[in-house]
């Protein structure tokens, strides 16, 4: 495992506990790029669309549960 990765994890655990690591682990795969530029870009597009779709769904569900209207 990359020593810099371990160093960053330890820094995050020290600063924010395990929850900081949760977000770090979600973002970390995005910052490790493979040799193929097209594959890296395709991966980033899929990750972006997937997160945005989940964001909209989460907000709509929360608003609906509370009887709020939303433009999302």
């Amino acid at each position, binding site marked *: 495992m990359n020593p810099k990765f371990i160093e960053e994890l330890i820094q995050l655990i020290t600063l*924010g506990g395990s*929850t900081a690591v949760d977000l770090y682990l979600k973002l970390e795969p995005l910052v490790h*790029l*493979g040799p193929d530029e097209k594959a890296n870009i395709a991966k980033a597009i899929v990750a972006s669309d997937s997160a945005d779709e989940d964001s909209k769904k989460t907000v709509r569900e929360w608003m609906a549960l509370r009887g709020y209207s939303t433009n999302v």
Partner: protein
Amino acid sequence: MRKRRILSLAPVLLLLLIGTGCLRKTDAFGAKLAISPWERVMTHNAMFSQLNNDAIKGTIGVAQSGIITDQQARPILEWEGQVSKDHETVTAILAKGPEVAANDPALRGFFEQVRTSGIELVTSGGIGIKNPRTQQSLSQDIQSIVNIAEALLSDIEAVKAARASAQTGGQ
């Protein structure tokens, strides 16, 4: 509260992940490779979506725990949800590639809108959250989204400059 802690650390995470050297590109043997300006744009764009997604879940967590009311959470979630909705269009533009996307005014318009509306949401006081620590924590979430929007604006400018330079050099 656990979610609050991580979200208040978002600026720290961004410093770790957006800063120079945090993006790593390697070949099959682990040797470092150069990252293209467009790979940087697309990677930061994906991080923008993920960070906004986490901010949404954090806001809901705070509302569920009773730290803020649903009425207070609503405008924040509306803003974050609208950002994710509009951001899908941005990703679709970026997917067309640097030749088309780098000069599309909609990109700059979106990220500038995120920046100005995010700052306005934080500074307007319209959310009505009195607790300074909660207010600061939510402000930091929004500020971290604004920060990555600014990084993306800078990335796009770098792509445009590189392309302009290549064209000038070719003449």
